[in-house]
């Protein structure tokens, strides 16, 4: 498929209450980050976050409807054709929809670096499968993403979550251990994460 309307994209409602409509994954775009968002049950349309970890600059363009953006504590009500460019990755940003039909296009990347698909895309894409208990599908999506980003600790950690809940304790232990070796902070998360309850008593559980 070379063209489609933003309303024909997959719609994945995430736990934070907004709807992710994957553009980059749908077209297989490799050169830049691009996704669309619509309001979910809570009316949120862009999650509150910073880009400090990835170092991305981002543009949020309102394609339809109206949305209230909060950037670095300042509110801006924007309509179609209006945008926010967030140059500093450390600034906290987010948006709520002011109209039900709102759609925001988000563009992002790290200056001076070739674009790499963000690990969160595979994790978001696996949410419907995980929600429905289709663990094999959720695990496959993570494994496919890890082929391209074998050193991604968040992907390894999330894969371990899926494997733990999907009845693959040895794989879960292996991938959780690798995630923690890459970044020890994942041990703290694992200690409180109920996804690991099925394997917490296993010998060698690393947290």
């Amino acid at each position, binding site marked *: 498929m070379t*063209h489609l309307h933003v309303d024909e994209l997959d719609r994945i409602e995430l736990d934070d209450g907004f709807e992710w409509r994957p553009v980059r994954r749908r077209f297989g775009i490799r050169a*830049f980050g691009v996704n669309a968002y619509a309001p979910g049950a809570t009316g949120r349309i862009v999650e509150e976050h910073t880009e400090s970890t990835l170092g991305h*600059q981002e*543009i949020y363009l309102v394609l339809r409807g109206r949305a209230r953006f909060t950037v670095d504590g300042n509110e801006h009500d924007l309509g179609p054709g209006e*945008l*926010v460019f967030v140059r500093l990755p450390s600034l906290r940003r987010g948006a709520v929809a002011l109209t039900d039909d709102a759609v925001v*296009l988000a563009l992002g990347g790290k200056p001076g670096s*070739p*674009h790499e698909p963000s690990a969160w895309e595979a994790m978001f894409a696996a949410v419907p499968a995980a929600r429905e208990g289709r663990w094999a599908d959720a695990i496959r999506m993570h494994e496919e993403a890890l082929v391209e980003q074998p050193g991604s600790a968040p992907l390894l950690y999330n894969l371990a979550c899926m494997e733990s809940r999907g009845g693959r304790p040895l794989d879960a232990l292996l991938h959780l251990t690798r995630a923690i070796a890459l970044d020890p902070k994942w041990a703290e998360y694992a200690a409180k994460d109920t996804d690991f309850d099925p394997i917490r008593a296993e010998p060698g559980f690393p947290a």
Partner: protein
Amino acid sequence: MNEGYRVLSLDDLERLKSTDGTLTLLPLRRTIGFRPFGVNAWLGEHAGDQVIERHREQDGDEELYVVVRGCATFTLGEETFAATAGTLVHAPPGTLREAIAAEDDTLVLAIGAKPGKAWEPAPWEDFYVAFAHRAAGRVDEGRALVVDTLTRHPGTWQGPFNAACFEALEGNDDAAFEYLRAAFDRAPALIGKYASDDHDLHRLQADPRWRELFG
């Protein structure tokens, strides 16, 4: 004003006509200083106007076009289709692409970069703006941008070739031939054909220096 972010409307951007008047660029990337990849908007003021020029990205850029408002008739490879507001069009590298406004005031966002490569601002953006300044009577501003762009992108044939076009349009034939010679030295196999086909340079073809250069 917070220096860490900026809010604007695409309609706040300058509307820059191409030299032949067929295209209207709204230079988003350059205006806001976005650095990760290329992103600009193109406007078809009237139905029938060219919004995206007919071209292929032979250097390997993949592009996504987003119809922000209005409606455009896109050609992508062998396919032609109507793209209303909210339509996303993906053009892999090398694919022929073109868009014509099917409604007045059709606005299309164009996003592009090469997969696997760190993006660098392409000189065409600056040359496009320089030529638009010239067309608007701001010749000195346009020329300063041409010289600045040549300094920032040394070694290419496209730089001096564009500079030759700029000076030819301004009637500065000596400078135009100096730039043409520099372009020819860098890509002798290409420049003869491009120069012969370029409308900006047609007037120079009667000059004896043209034959000296291209035979």
